[in-house]
């Protein structure tokens, strides 16, 4: 009898504190939830804006996307999301997530922004495992090297110059580390090629989505 009460009290104490604790957290959650979602959105946007400054587009970049099946040419092994920038009603640029597979020690994840005319809007490294102090010069925080891609396109420099200088190309390597820049240059190049080949397809795909959602509801909604 006594034991039963003992056991019951244990349960109730724990339950009581659970209620109090959850209430506290729940209230905090209610207060902060919107702000948090906002934050996350803003953070992503900030990254995209580094490639594509906000004055260059006027749409809701985060919600204007198309998804892409896994594609070797972009190094993607899973479905990925391409962000579409628009100016007025025209598509002005696209931002591709690209993975360079041949870094010195693993994959280099980046975002590659390509203007609709085929020039590079910008390249940023999202994450990598290169040697700190050697291969990490591609990070914008460490050096300006990635800025060298700005404005380049498939023909500028010429096709056969899409290499690092060591290999006779147009791009600098880092002292003592050629592999990393080589990999990045190669991946950016591949992405440009991809864009060149599939530009139409991509635009069509996007337009179809818009139509679909317009017919469904109003425009501007993200489409999955």
């Amino acid at each position, binding site marked *: 009898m006594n034991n039963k009460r*003992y056991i*019951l009290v*244990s*349960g109730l104490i*724990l*339950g009581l504190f*659970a*209620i109090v604790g*959850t209430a506290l957290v729940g209230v905090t*959650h209610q207060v902060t939830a919107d702000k948090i979602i906002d934050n996350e959105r803003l953070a992503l946007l900030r990254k995209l804006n580094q490639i594509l400054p906000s004055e260059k587009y006027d749409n809701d970049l985060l919600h204007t996307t198309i998804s892409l099946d896994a594609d070797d040419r972009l190094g993607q092994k899973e479905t990925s999301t391409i962000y579409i920038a628009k100016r007025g009603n025209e598509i002005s640029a696209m931002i591709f997530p690209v993975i360079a597979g041949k870094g010195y020690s693993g994959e280099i994840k980046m975002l590659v922004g390509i203007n609709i005319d085929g020039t590079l809007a910008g390249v940023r490294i999202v994450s990598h495992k290169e040697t700190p102090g050697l291969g990490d010069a591609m990070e914008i925080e460490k050096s300006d090297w990635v800025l060298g891609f700005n404005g380049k396109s498939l023909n500028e420099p010429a096709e056969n110059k899409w290499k690092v200088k060591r290999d006779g190309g147009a791009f600098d390597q880092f002292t003592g580390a050629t592999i990393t820049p080589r990999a990045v240059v190669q991946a950016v190049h591949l992405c440009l090629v991809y864009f060149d080949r599939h530009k139409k397809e991509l635009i069509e795909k996007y337009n179809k989505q818009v139509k679909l959602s317009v017919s469904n509801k109003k425009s501007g909604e993200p489409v999955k």
Partner: protein
Amino acid sequence: MSILIAIIVLATISVFFGLLLGYTSVKFHVEGDPVVDKIDALLPQTQCGQCTYPGCRPYAEAIAAGEANINQCPPGGETTMLALSELLGVEPIPLDSEHADDPEKTVVYIDEQTCIGCTLCIQACPVDAILGAAKQMHSIIESECTGCNLCIPPCPVDCIHIIPVKIEPETWRWSLPESTDTSPKA
């Protein structure tokens, strides 16, 4: 609404867990603390109280409860401290200043000429190492004496003296080689 769900879910689970723990604590109750015994076995059982506890076992209990350090027993010296640190898996602590090394072992003897047979020492001795009856001269059973010196203060005529335990060739110990500055620390 969402808060309510959260609270309900968590509270349910918590109550369940609480019941579970309550149940197990009742059903799987275990008693006793063997650690104290283990510690006590390492102490020299001199019962001298220099550790500030009234005897070895209380000190052992204090150590087990985490209230006392392992370096408070002068009769045990460094050896005991090291043994305790080994047992409890704690870092060895140097002994309090004076008793830096293992103390010399001593016993006491009663100057039988001066002893008046008051039996005060008998009452003080924690291990009954003193023989004698009232008004008769007393003597120490040397093999039983632990050298705690507790019998000395009560003696009204100061007839109890400390002597080192005699070392025989058989009980003699080799010392560590002297040039310790190039050898590992103790």
